[in-house]
């Protein structure tokens, strides 16, 4: 990641420790994940030991040290989605894409993840693709949904 981009992100928040999470989220928003060189640079620039940055980066679910695919699928596994078969939706997507949850397809097209609850419980089971929420899902609707993003 270009140093100038990181500089401008840090500048926006100020080099305060309390801004670290926001800075990492913005880096991830640009790069799709947290590249190691970017974290090393943030560590130097903000005078925060790299180990502490890694601790933050591995503690929060929203942050990823692994590159993600072009499209990100989050299947909701909240309680309401669970009792309505959310895990079956997840398994169907796993079968269709040939990956397990947390993995990226070989063609780099999809990263499949699960999320604890997105607060769309009335319309479960629910999945989010690239930030767009799809409600009232069923196993039979999965293939069509994936095709939209092929």
């Amino acid at each position, binding site marked *: 990641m270009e140093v100038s981009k990181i500089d401008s992100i840090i500048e926006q928040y100020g080099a305060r420790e309390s801004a*670290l999470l926001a800075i990492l989220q913005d880096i991830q928003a640009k790069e799709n994940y947290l590249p190691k060189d970017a974290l090393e640079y943030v560590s130097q620039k903000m005078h925060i030991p790299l180990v502490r940055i890694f601790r933050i980066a591995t503690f929060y679910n929203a*942050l990823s040290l692994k590159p993600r695919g072009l499209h990100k699928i989050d299947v909701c596994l909240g*309680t*309401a989605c669970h009792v309505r078969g959310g895990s079956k939706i997840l398994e169907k997507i796993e079968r269709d894409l040939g990956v397990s949850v947390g993995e990226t397809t070989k063609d780099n097209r999809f990263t499949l993840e699960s999320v604890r609850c997105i*607060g*769309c419980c*009335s*319309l479960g089971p629910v999945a989010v693709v690239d930030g767009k*929420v799809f*409600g009232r899902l069923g196993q039979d609707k999965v293939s069509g949904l994936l095709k939209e993003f092929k």
Partner: protein
Amino acid sequence: MKIRTKNDLEKMREKGLKNLYPKETKVSVGMATCGLSTGADKVYEAIQDEVEKGKLPIQLAQTGCIGFCQREPVVDILEPGKPRVFYQEVTPDRAKELIHRWLKNEVVGDWLLCKMEKEDWIAEDRVQDYPIRQIPKGIDGTPSYHQVPFYNKQLKIALRNCGFINPDHIEEYVARGGYISLYKALFEMKPEEIIEEVKRSGLRGRGGAGFLTGNKWETCRRAKGDQKFILCNADEGDPGAYMDRSILEGDPHSVVEGMIIGAYATGAHEGFIYVRNEYPLAIQKLLIALQQAEEAGLLGDDILGSGFSLKINLFRGGGAFVCGESTALMASIEGKVGEPRAKHIHTTESGLWDKPSNLNNVETWNNVPIILSRGAGWYSKIGTDQSKGTKVFSIVGKVKNTGLIEVPMGITLREIVYDIGGGVPDGKKFKAVQTGGPSGGCIPESLINLPVDFDRLTEVGSMMGSGGMIVMDESTCMVDVAKYFMDFLKGESCGKCTSCREGTKRMHEILTEIAEGRGTMDHIELLKELGWVTAEASLCQLGGTAPNPVLSTIRYFQEEYEEHILHKRCPAKVCRALLQYRILSNVCTKCGRCAKVCPVKAITGKKKTKKETGEPFSIDAKKCIKCGMCFETCKFEAVEVQ
């Protein structure tokens, strides 16, 4: 427009009223996350296209969710002289048709959710009538808003504006009585008087523990310190609860106003709203609201010329459930990992950066302006002895009507599940309601007449939590539910306390053993013991309440555990290792749909055609992965699960 006087506020209100009730027809589309997930954006675009193309005399607006999320997308039409109508499950095609019909003074009765003849403005005890001069054709037989079973037992205080205003327009919030309480607080009340009023109202924190809000404020006000903080917990992590999201997406100013009043009362000059990363739309709406409040002089230096200053920052969470715990939330804002600490010293005395900090959740803040405008006396008349006011619940899961409801405390579970929720769909039998998220428990049918308030829920081994109510029916397995929550908690435990980190993991392992048919009767005792240790030895309430889902299911559904252990049977037909799928050859119509959808080609048979009689299909148990696709696909109930 900067507001300095009450007159300025009135001017803003007039502007808002013109937005809310324009002279021409106004069509509003509910565009909260629930609406968007069912295509409200496409509906909006379709109407926009149609209006532009035909140069129709229609004003198009966006709004939040009116609570009946299941019926989204919801579109409402308001025209002077006619009743307001709410359409449900609108598609782009239907949207086009219904606006054209409206312009011909017609409605499509079958698509209507309800009509409305008046609006309650709860903030000021006013009723906004719609003077009706013309009745649209086809509206006969459409129930009024308060006649719809989903709405008729509701009393909306927290959700007062959701679905009725455009959350991006501060003027509309002001028009319905917004920021009037702030004005009253700053100019007509002393901080101590505000605290007294909140104490007298009996308001208890809506985030889970139910601590008395006024008392909390008082401790924070009395705490010594040159700098204090005011915080809003919008890290709504309980799965199945989403009232905070809906309030933030539909009425963000109500939370901002509550916080400013709270800051003035406690003596804080800086605040933070900690919002879940999973709520991007709520973040967007809040940022707009904060900016508008600043521009209007309701935030920043010298608010409304009162000399009081407050800055509110928005902090985006990182997707960690534990950050909903107060000390973890504060650690997270400080830039550390979100780990709780022991609370020998309360955060009201030493919280964020060791300064006195007052944290309340979204719904609590949102109630504050109403308590000031309507008075503690009015507020405390609603609810039960120890739980005052209303509570928003998300009623979801295996229930006919799903959505967000707001009811007076003390209403029975039966009224919520059956009268409002319409009972369990598909003729299935009701089994339990899960409340309180991962810290709560499952309440069985025998307690269906339980009045719902903070203390009664705790008495039966569950808790209020943030208000999620997940209805479960006979096809929900209680062992699976307990296992689900342990899986959730073992993933979300921050790992600081061994008891929670290891306890949840071990409980999950044991529950997995039971669910897969390897359980023994000793496991039940072991679970109880582990649960006790986890609760007693953990620092924060996440660990302290972690065993609740396990203990409450054992308490009320032990026979279901025993079925799994002794007879290797899952009565709800959920625990996969114990299931067997087969096709009843005498019912099979030989259509072959099951074989077509089977992902592992475990189903064979011969399809019936015009020329051939075919052969019934059957499942190869060795190949079957028990995904249930055949079961879901078969229209003739020929697939049996045992």
